């Protein structure tokens, strides 16, 4: 049956009544000493990756500007756009968890920059993501469900260019700048942070206004191609990898092996995505930093469904399910567990099958 994803709607109550709002999620048992080693933070990997990221952005943007108005500038804009509109999503994510860097101010700095690029208010999205981890793909509770059922293919396709997310982000920014929160945000953001959200929105709107003004004054697209528009023309990689996180899998389940997907990816996508392709592992153990997820993956493999071997293979598995979910919202994929794995835990532990 169709689902109601409204956080203030009837499904929120229903999830609570069904015992799905709980910390009682399945976890693969891991020796504490080993887990401590996996959770250990370091600055070096994220400093290296951040220098590479911003260095490449500067090089691509510089080359694109130098080649304007030639069509030869297009590939450089596209490369810059992917780093702005997609890599910043994973930086938002990892730094929001506080796991990318060992040093807290570094996480904070990159988080603020990434939030701006992705048009995500730092406080709203901190709490939205906390809820996503508390109630992953629980209908009526999780504010970050990318693929809703029944699946509307046009809406999904439009978001490959940010045509859903960007208007929503701008709308929220305008509402926040006027000193108000949206009803869904009021269900998960602590009120003490509202004033910070309002201030951030006003600063961001001023930056976008100045960018638009510069474009008009200089009669040039360059300011907009550098700030704002890359969130649209460069977000396709984020959307493409993001759909794989939970698409076609179960909902209202208390076991991340049922609702999340791990996919082996090429090194470029893993750099852009900061290893979030190890998504079951990340959800089960969110304190493990991105650079230790491959190690965690090896530790958990005996208890997890087999990962998808590549992005194309994951899509070959997921797309037919999404196509069917247009008409049959209850249909989903359940992947077999390896021999000896702990059985799936669909509901609260007392009633686990």
């Amino acid at each position, binding site marked *: 049956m169709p689902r109601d994803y409204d956080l203030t709607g009837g499904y929120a109550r229903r999830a609570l009544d069904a015992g799905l709002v709980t*910390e009682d999620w399945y976890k693969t048992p891991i020796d*504490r000493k080993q*887990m401590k080693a996996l959770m250990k933070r370091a600055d070096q990997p994220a400093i290296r990756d951040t220098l590479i990221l911003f260095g490449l952005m500067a090089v691509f943007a510089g080359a694109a500007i130098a080649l304007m108005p030639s069509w030869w500038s297009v590939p450089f804009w596209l490369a810059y756009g992917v780093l702005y509109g997609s890599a910043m999503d994973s930086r938002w994510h990892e730094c929001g968890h506080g796991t990318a860097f060992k040093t807290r101010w570094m996480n904070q700095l990159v988080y603020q920059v990434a939030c701006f690029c992705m048009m995500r208010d730092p406080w709203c999205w901190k709490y939205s993501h906390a809820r996503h981890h*508390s109630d992953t793909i629980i209908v009526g509770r999780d504010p970050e469900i990318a693929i809703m059922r029944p699946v509307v293919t046009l809406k999904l396709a439009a978001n490959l260019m940010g045509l859903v997310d960007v208007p929503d982000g701008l709308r929220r920014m305008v509402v926040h700048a006027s000193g108000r929160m949206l009803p869904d945000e009021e269900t998960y953001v*602590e009120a003490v942070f509202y004033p910070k959200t309002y201030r951030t929105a006003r600063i961001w709107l001023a930056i976008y206004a100045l960018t638009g003004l510069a474009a008009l004054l200089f009669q040039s697209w360059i300011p907009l191609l550098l700030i704002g528009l890359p969130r649209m023309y460069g977000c396709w990689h984020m959307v493409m990898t993001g759909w794989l996180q939970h698409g076609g899998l179960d909902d209202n389940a208390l076991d991340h092996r049922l609702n999340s997907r791990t996919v082996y990816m090429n090194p470029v996508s893993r750099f852009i995505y900061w290893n979030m392709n190890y998504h079951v592992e990340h959800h089960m153990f969110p304190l493990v930093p991105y650079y230790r997820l491959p190690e965690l993956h090896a530790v958990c493999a005996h208890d997890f469904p087999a990962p998808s071997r590549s992005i194309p293979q994951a899509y070959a598995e997921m797309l037919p399910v999404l196509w069917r979910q247009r008409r049959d919202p209850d249909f989903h994929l359940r992947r077999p567990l390896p021999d000896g794995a702990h059985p799936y835990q669909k509901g609260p532990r007392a009633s686990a099958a």
Partner: protein
Amino acid sequence: MAEWIDACAADDVEEEDVIRFDHGDRTFVIVRDHQDNYYCTDGLCTHEDVHLENGLVVEATIECPKHSSIFDCATGEVETPPACENLRTYPTKVENGRVLVAL
């Protein structure tokens, strides 16, 4: 007047680590920092009641394993949201290799 309760052996907790301690119907964590100081705090994170026994201890702070709220183990103060409410802490001492907590 608070009563000193024998919570565990000092060696039960590794350096920069945490263990769970249940007493009556209440749950706590015992934390040992990098300088062999011991702390006892409430066991559940003030954000969403996630147990801190699987959290990450760095020096004298503990990080919630679910949403990464960070608390100062000595004062219970929130250092990093999403938690907004401080953690309750309890006087702790080590005597004859045992960790004692005033509850």
